[in-house]
């Protein structure tokens, strides 16, 4: 059964349908959100933790969700914030420098069982990890999710102009990295 977001939200607000509606929301968006998070945190277990946490927040906050914004946008915003919080926590806990934390993510990529240094797809992942966190998110949302700037603006609460500039910088840096490594 395919219910649209409005119907799902309506059902979520009915006590007897709440859990069922929530499960349907999770099923509907889990893969998109998982990959959004995974590209940020790289490791599967970390992505799983962040995904679980974000959906717990969704469970607690959905009751008060204002339907003047799209559910999809709201979920992306929570996933993005949770990913950034996770990365910040990693940085704080780390005794090493920020640069070393960044290279830690690259090392996680290289440690993936399927990693192939000669494949462009893997080089692309390494290149993305060189970007600052905010640029990384903008690049991923635009390149992989093909999200319009208008929507991204609502997710990241940043002006469309700033997002365009950020994406242009990020894409250039990624291309340069791949061509020079």
């Amino acid at each position, binding site marked *: 059964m395919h219910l649209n977001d409005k119907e799902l939200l309506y059902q979520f607000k009915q006590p007897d349908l709440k859990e069922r509606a929530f499960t349907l929301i999770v099923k509907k968006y889990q893969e998109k959100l*998982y990959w959004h998070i*995974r590209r940020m945190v790289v490791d599967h277990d970390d992505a799983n933790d962040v995904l679980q946490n974000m959906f*717990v927040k969704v469970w607690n906050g959905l009751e008060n969700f204002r339907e003047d914004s799209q559910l999809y946008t709201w979920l992306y915003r929570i996933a993005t914030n949770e990913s950034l919080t996770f990365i910040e926590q990693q940085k704080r806990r780390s005794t090493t420098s920020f640069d070393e934390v960044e290279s830690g993510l690259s090392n996680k990529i290289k440690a993936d069982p399927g990693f192939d240094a000669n*494949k462009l*797809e893997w080089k*692309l992942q390494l290149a993305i990890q060189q970007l600052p966190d905010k640029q990384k998110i903008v690049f991923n949302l635009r390149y992989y999710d093909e999200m319009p700037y208008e929507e991204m603006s609502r997710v990241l609460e940043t002006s469309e102009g700033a997002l365009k500039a950020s*994406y242009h910088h990020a894409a*250039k840096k990624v291309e340069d990295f791949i061509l020079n490594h």
Partner: protein
Amino acid sequence: MEEKNTIREELQALCPAVANLARINVYTVPEGYFQKLGERIVQYVKQNEEPSLQISSATPFNVPVGYFDGLAEKILNKAKQQTPGNEVRDELNSIAPFLNNISKVPVFSVPPNYFETLNIKVAEQKPARIFSFGNISKTVRYAVAAAIIGIVAIGSVLFINKEKSSSALSYKVEEIRKLSDKEIIEFLNAGSFAEVSPNSPMYLPQDQDYKQFMETLTEEEIQEFLKQNYVPSETQSKES
């Protein structure tokens, strides 16, 4: 045979002259006609078939080995590239065209059946109490934040050291009032009371009894404290 006799009897009754005629086939056929009839009919049928059906199913053309492997994916990629109005692709073409040649298929692996078995453990959580700042302007919010921190700090003093004189409490409030906006912002950015140094006036114990004590504070008590101890930042700067 019985049926044949019946027919003959019937004919005898109707027309006896005909019934008595010898049953000889008067027509002739070319010699050997029936021997080759089957082959001729087959040949005739073949000659009258649609011309295309006569062509061998074996194509005379060759294709490179493995041509059809991944052909669907290649066509799909090409179709996507040529789809008019693909804003993201067109945009990337103008910035970093090389990136358009890279497949977007995820390279990371996921445990088998991860998405099918994903189970989010949720539990109803008690929502945090929210206190309205009413008409307090944005410019003095940090000062209000400081006041709230003050409540928490005073609560800790009251709880930990109930026997101490009121002068100790006043001292604590004064100490917090002296904090600059910068220090308060730093404290708020720390994100947790646990990260505050024990030497700071903001320091709070983290034990369970204290947490229970804080939960017993009513909204009225906190609002009352805000009224009594709220000091706008402008006034603070003049005082200091």
